[in-house]
């Protein structure tokens, strides 16, 4: 796979150009747009490819065959394991990585959310954001989580039955999925 081709940028494009192209493609193939659509599988496949390409370009400037063994790759592996539901493996791998960093907290957030420990997930995300205030991935994940909670709270206060199912679908995304989807290359680019 040629990552430049996948992202539709010229070889040697700058980091900003790559990032811009990447974000546009993610928007285009985002699973939300393909809900109940027969093309959903295709879009998912495509999104995976896009993420891979972006990660390749971000890991040490993409010189072929250079598999990065940096911390970033390992943290990403943790997220992948979480995505596949292999929680014990994800926890084992994470325990071997340096703890207390923003990435570490983000991984913990993904794991705990998957385990249904939402309170802990929130605390870890907050810690990740404190350690890396500008990181857009963490912010997006956090906003998504808080959005779901706020909608629920408003329902409670207005005392109305929630009948707007379409609206709910958007916010009912699992937080863990969100972590994985938003993850992409941002996660790597910050390290």
């Amino acid at each position, binding site marked *: 796979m040629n990552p430049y081709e996948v992202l539709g940028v010229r070889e040697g494009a700058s980091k900003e150009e790559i990032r811009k192209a990447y974000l546009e493609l993610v928007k285009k193939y985002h699973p939300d747009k393909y809900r109940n659509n027969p093309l959903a599988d295709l879009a998912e496949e495509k999104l995976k490819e896009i993420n891979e390409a972006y990660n390749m370009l971000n890991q040490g400037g993409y010189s072929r065959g250079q598999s990065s063994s940096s911390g970033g790759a390992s943290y990403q592996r943790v997220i992948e394991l979480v995505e596949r539901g292999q929680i014990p493996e994800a926890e084992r791998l994470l325990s071997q990585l340096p703890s207390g960093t923003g990435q570490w907290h983000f991984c913990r957030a993904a794991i*705990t959310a998957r385990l*249904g*420990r*939402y*309170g*802990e997930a*929130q*605390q870890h995300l907050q810690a990740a954001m404190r350690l890396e205030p500008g990181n857009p991935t963490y912010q997006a994940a956090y906003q998504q*989580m*808080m959005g*779901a*909670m*706020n*909608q*629920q*709270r408003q*329902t*409670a*206060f207005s*005392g109305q*039955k*929630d009948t707007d*199912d379409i609206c*709910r679908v958007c*916010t*009912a995304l699992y937080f863990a999925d969100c972590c994985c989807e938003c993850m992409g290359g941002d996660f790597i680019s910050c390290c």
Partner: protein
Amino acid sequence: MFGYLRPVEPELKIKDFHYFRAYYCGLCRAMGKRLGQTSRLTLSYEATFLALLLSALSDDAEQLTVGRCLLHPGRKRLFLKNSPHLDYAADVGVLLVYYKLLDDWHNERAIQGLLGVGFLSLTKNKVHKKRKQLAGGIAWELDQLQTLEDAACPSVDRAAEPFARIMRELFSVPGASEELLSFAYELGRWLYIVDAFDDLEADLKSGSYNPLRYQFAWQGEEASIFREQVKPPVEFNLYYTLGKLQDHYRQLPIVRREVLDNIVLLGLNQTTARILAGKKRGEDN
């Protein structure tokens, strides 16, 4: 853990109110018939909810009869009868109350707990014989909870897990869907966390275990001040859990949904808001 899972009565239609009461009163009767009069004292909204939901997920026809209640002989009321779901809920109801009292005695040395345990032990033995596996499962999970409490577990999420698993166990009837079990699990989490927050001030004063105390590192400050400090994260946790729970609930193929909708979609929301505001039942928001 009791009393958080009940309908919002003013929002019920009269017919639905009577329908709910037919289950509540029917459960009370089923308990008396099946397990003896003592068991009727353990009648709870939680057990009624269990019967309502399991019944609404099955195709069984309901048999309603009109009769009089010994405690309220003035007026005739509706009773549900001959329902396997009521029988099951009767057994579960006794177990829940028994273990709750046992827990009160262990943790707070509450004398009512000890008296209750003694009082209920015969009834509990009856249930144990019928539901060996279930009773064993509950006892096992409560043991897990005890271990967490002894270790002063500093996470309300983790402390909630044994109880959440108990709830899942209670709904693990033949043919239970994954959706139903996930719903039950989140419901267990919600109940535990609501209870922990509701009891926080009292627990700080009495020194009983409360996961929030350790999760948010209580330093001996005024209980009401500490309560306000931990409120935002607890609020997040409760509403987020509630969102998940209601998403699962909406996927369930429920046949008679009026009362259940009222409890799950309305009642739980209101209770969450009320407990967070620190109000008792009746002091409405």
